């Protein structure tokens, strides 16, 4: 039992779970990370084609834990975000109000993972249980008791970082508010002929938004990734057509910005849903990242919100250990819920409403949108407020 007695257990070795264990590094806590996959296996990691949009605010957080200087090497900066409604004259060009800065960065997930794993595997205070599945969880007065297919772990605090379909949330019967969209999304990594000029494009259609994010140029080619939201049947079709036909479809949408598509590198589909837990924590248990909330990807804020969760959680845990307190008690989970819930809930609602505003094809909403675009584009103060919000800075 002694061996499996730790201060905290993080379930989920995704970016949020791994980042959290790096953040907690200096507190001298004994940490166990549990993941059902073999995440240290390079072949498994190489399959991950996803990229993460890191906002300027998230960069500041990563920098404060000494991680940004390593991630920066392979980060594609975003200088502009151009938002375009159906009709091209309706557009807003967002740039960082501080001229020198960027709006955010696009980084390959597998690269971030590599950096985090290097740091974690060299830390003797962190136990790593891969290919380990959770069977059951019991919360007692003194411990979160985690039963896996390999062992039983006693922990002061259990942190659920196991994603939007969180298994822990199911075992613990944690209630959620949820929204299902009649939308799916496809992520396509592709090469194209024209330089993307460090610009992200967000194009709105009544079928759903389409975002093109600039990726770091490899030796010869311009790279971008597309997040295309549409109704599920359409996405299913997209997934089954040949690459040459898919190229034509993408050309139609983005040719004037990125030139023609020269190669489809990879594609992946997923259905869109959003949720938020009614509680972000209970006795000896907290939820972070997508296990606590998942957002419509329209604003690319999901991961950044998760990073702010774990930044605040790290600060609260530090306050508790500075006072010698048991980190599983209300001092931690109540403060955490109080600090995080409202912010996540507002973003949950904002992204949802934003999606509906752009989906409906009625003349009233259309006029409102046109007016909105004009007001925002001509008002620099408003524009910089929105930009700051999107960058994850406080208003």
């Amino acid at each position, binding site marked *: 039992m002694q061996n499996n007695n730790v201060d905290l257990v993080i379930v989920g070795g995704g970016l949020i779970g791994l980042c959290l264990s790096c953040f907690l590094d200096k507190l001298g806590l004994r940490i166990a990370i549990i993941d059902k996959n073999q995440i240290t296996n390079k072949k498994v990691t190489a399959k991950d084609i996803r990229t993460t949009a890191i906002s300027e605010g998230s960069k500041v957080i990563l920098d404060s834990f000494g991680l940004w200087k390593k991630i920066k090497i392979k980060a594609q900066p975003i200088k502009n975000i151009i938002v375009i409604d159906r009709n091209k004259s309706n557009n807003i060009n967002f740039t960082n109000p501080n001229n020198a800065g960027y709006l955010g960065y696009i980084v390959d997930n597998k690269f971030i993972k590599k950096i985090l794993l290097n740091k974690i595997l060299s830390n003797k205070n962190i136990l790593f249980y891969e290919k380990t599945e959770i069977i059951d969880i019991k919360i007692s007065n*003194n411990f979160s008791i985690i039963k896996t297919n390999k062992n039983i772990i006693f922990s002061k605090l259990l942190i659920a970082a196991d994603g939007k379909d969180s298994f822990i949330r199911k075992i613990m019967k944690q209630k959620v508010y949820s929204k299902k969209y009649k939308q799916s999304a496809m992520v396509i990594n592709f090469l194209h002929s024209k330089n993307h000029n460090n610009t992200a494009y967000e194009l709105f259609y009544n079928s759903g938004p389409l975002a093109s994010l600039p990726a770091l140029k490899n030796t010869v080619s311009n790279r971008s990734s597309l997040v295309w939201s549409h109704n599920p049947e359409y996405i299913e079709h997209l997934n089954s057509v040949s690459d040459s036909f898919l190229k034509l479809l993408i050309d139609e949408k983005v040719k004037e910005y990125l030139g023609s598509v020269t190669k489809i590198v990879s594609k992946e589909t997923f259905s869109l849903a959003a949720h938020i837990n009614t509680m972000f924590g209970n006795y000896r248990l907290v939820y972070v990242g997508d296990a606590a909330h998942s957002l419509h990807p329209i604003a690319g804020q999901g991961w950044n919100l998760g990073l702010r969760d774990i930044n605040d959680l790290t600060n609260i845990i530090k306050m508790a250990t500075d006072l010698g307190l048991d980190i599983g008690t209300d001092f931690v989970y109540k403060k955490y819920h109080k600090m995080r819930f409202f912010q996540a809930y507002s973003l949950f609602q904002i992204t949802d409403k934003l999606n509906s505003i752009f989906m409906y094809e009625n003349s009233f909403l259309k006029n409102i949108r046109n007016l909105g675009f004009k007001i925002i584009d001509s008002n620099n103060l408003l524009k910089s407020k929105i930009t700051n919000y999107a960058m994850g800075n406080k208003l």
Partner: protein
Amino acid sequence: MINKINENKEFDHFQDLANEWWHPEGKFKILHTITPLRINYIKKNVKNYQKNKNIKNIPFFNLDILDLGCGGGLICEPLCRLGANVTGVDFVTKNIKVAKQHALKSNLDIEYFKQDLSSLNLKKKYDVILLLEVIEHLDNWKKIITRSLKYLKPKGRIIFSSINRTITSKIFAIFLTEQILHWIPKKTHTYNKLVKPEELILFIEKNKMKTINTTGLFFNPITREWSLNNKKMKINYFCTAEKI
């Protein structure tokens, strides 16, 4: 004789409650809520005196602390995690049993003794002595403080927390919290036993002690948060004194 009966009453009261100590939503919930503030107060008032340099996260490294009236060990455990060598003493056998069992589960090395404070008998002297929420339960607090001070090292510090004897405390600390809000069990406090901070200070300063700090513990009913506030001492207060 009367004294004996009163003491037995206190004994029975706490004996019945012993199992509740570590239930976060149980009868001692209020103590769990104010634990962070109590530790914070102790940290602030022990720090200046401490000669050892802070070793990273172990601010109380090697400091000998005696917690008199330790109950279930709610304060002993955090102090031990902060590096102190902690001794807890309580006159209720069941409390000591609960405290020992819990320390084992928390994997903490704390010394617990069942002793009557009026006949306190210990082998060593301490850097810090705590009498937290204790003197208001005693029939002869002066006698017990005098006895406790024998175990304080020169320049060592004693820290008290207690309830003031004022109209405000009678209304809030006894009537409201026990009878109406049920924050603490009924009959926990008796008004006449409460000690005013000025009485406490007057007494300890006669016993070769120098007052270092007094602070109030204040509950804001609107934000529902507790805070330390040196101007609000009408209900709960802390007091630190140093042996000359």
